[in-house]
């Protein structure tokens, strides 16, 4: 049986890992902090996947970011998605050569469909993870790109269709309103849009504890739940969340201890 996935997302900016709240970033610690306080290389054995995002607002240096990816990718044996600031095929290549297995794309999904197409052709559709950031305005989800700063004049539904046609292999629905709040996922939007998504769906934004992860996994049609909450899952937070979910019969993979 195909398993659901528990994904941890690390948000990186200019030398530091960040806690994001509604896309406002707060510095938490550098890579040494992550390795020491999160015992990163140990807890990686309790995750199904890792996403590393460069959220720098001051120009995203792919070479510097690739070094971080490369250091995190060493001695962990799980799929790594990396992205943020990919603007040309050379950026994609550099991240793959640094240990990324998939790329997360956001702004270029709108601004450069040709690039998305060439990445899909060269590396395959399964290598493209489309991150869809949205905010609720009125009662409608509005798509944002460019670190949540640029609003798009297109419905979420049309946008999802476009990016699937372009070759997205997975879609991450990320609620900017819920981001970093720890209030739980945006279940309303997930329920309304899941049946319109024909590739694996990852939900993101709002998970503050293992119960929220459980609620997300319980939604039929959700392939993976993601959390980027550095504060709420510190120490053994993630390994404990995984054991809790497996103990409670959730459909997560199990591997040799």
């Amino acid at each position, binding site marked *: 049986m195909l398993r659901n996935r528990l994904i941890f997302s690390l948000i990186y900016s200019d030398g530091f890992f960040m806690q994001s709240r509604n896309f406002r970033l707060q510095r938490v610690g550098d890579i040494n902090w992550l390795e020491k306080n999160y015992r990163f290389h140990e807890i990686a054995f309790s995750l199904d996947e890792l996403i590393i995002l460069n959220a720098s607002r001051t120009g995203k240096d792919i070479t510097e970011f690739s070094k971080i990816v490369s250091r995190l990718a060493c001695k962990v044996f799980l799929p*790594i998605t990396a992205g943020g600031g990919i603007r040309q095929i050379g950026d994609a290549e550099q991240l793959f050569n640094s240990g990324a297995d998939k790329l997360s794309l956001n702004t270029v999904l709108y601004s450069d469909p040709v690039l998305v197409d060439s990445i899909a052709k060269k590396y*395959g559709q399964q290598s493209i993870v489309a991150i869809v950031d949205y905010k609720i305005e009125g009662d409608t989800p509005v798509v944002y790109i460019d670190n949540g700063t640029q609003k798009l004049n297109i419905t979420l539904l049309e946008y999802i269709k476009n990016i699937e046609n372009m070759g997205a292999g997975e879609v991450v629905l990320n609620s900017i309103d819920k981001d970093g709040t720890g209030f739980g996922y945006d279940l309303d939007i997930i329920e309304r849009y899941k049946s319109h998504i024909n590739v694996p769906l990852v939900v993101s934004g709002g998970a503050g504890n293992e119960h929220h992860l459980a609620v997300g996994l319980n939604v039929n049609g959700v392939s993976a739940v993601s959390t980027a909450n550095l504060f709420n899952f510190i120490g053994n937070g993630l390994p404990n969340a995984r054991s809790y979910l497996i103990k409670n019969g959730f459909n997560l993979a199990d*591997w040799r201890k």
Partner: protein
Amino acid sequence: MKLAIVDYGMGNLHSLVGALDYVSNIDVLVSSNIKDLRQADKLILPGVGHFLSAMACIKDLGLDAVLKELVIEEKTPILGICLGMQLLTDSSDEGGYSDGLGFINGRATRFNSNELPVPHVGYNQVNAAVNSRLYDGFGPSPDFYFTHSHQLQSDCSIGQSTCHYGNDFIASFEYENIAGVQFHPELSQTNGLKLLKNFVELF
């Protein structure tokens, strides 16, 4: 002992090298140099991307002939991973029909996306064949990480183990010195590490 990962310019090989270093003392070399490949005791054919373009790269580098010589004539053990596994078989319809290396009976076709999300992404349980060397020491249905849009079927008995996604498809095969896995052992946590160790030690 030397193991060569056949490099034909596709995808991330870091995790694979890292995983092999983690589980064994075998000398690992990433190369497309024919001389290097001839000196290897074991081969791994990795692969991410399109079947058609991968076959084109392999032919451009002259690797099809040397792989045939090493794998078919000299019986050097080889493990194909993901696209690399499919390349060992007869054909695929990815990017238009393309012949594969043809070492193993099998053909890859796209999953039916009317019923299920495609690509097939995530850990899935493998129904491990009895007496398998790859799964030596495993329980009956271990989890491995898959990410692919094309699935392999075969008309022959090639020591296949299966996985289910909409239908049963070949998750791995092992026939004499030739083995292939559709999933990524290097991204499958401790299960994948153990499987790679089995390939290094038992083939």
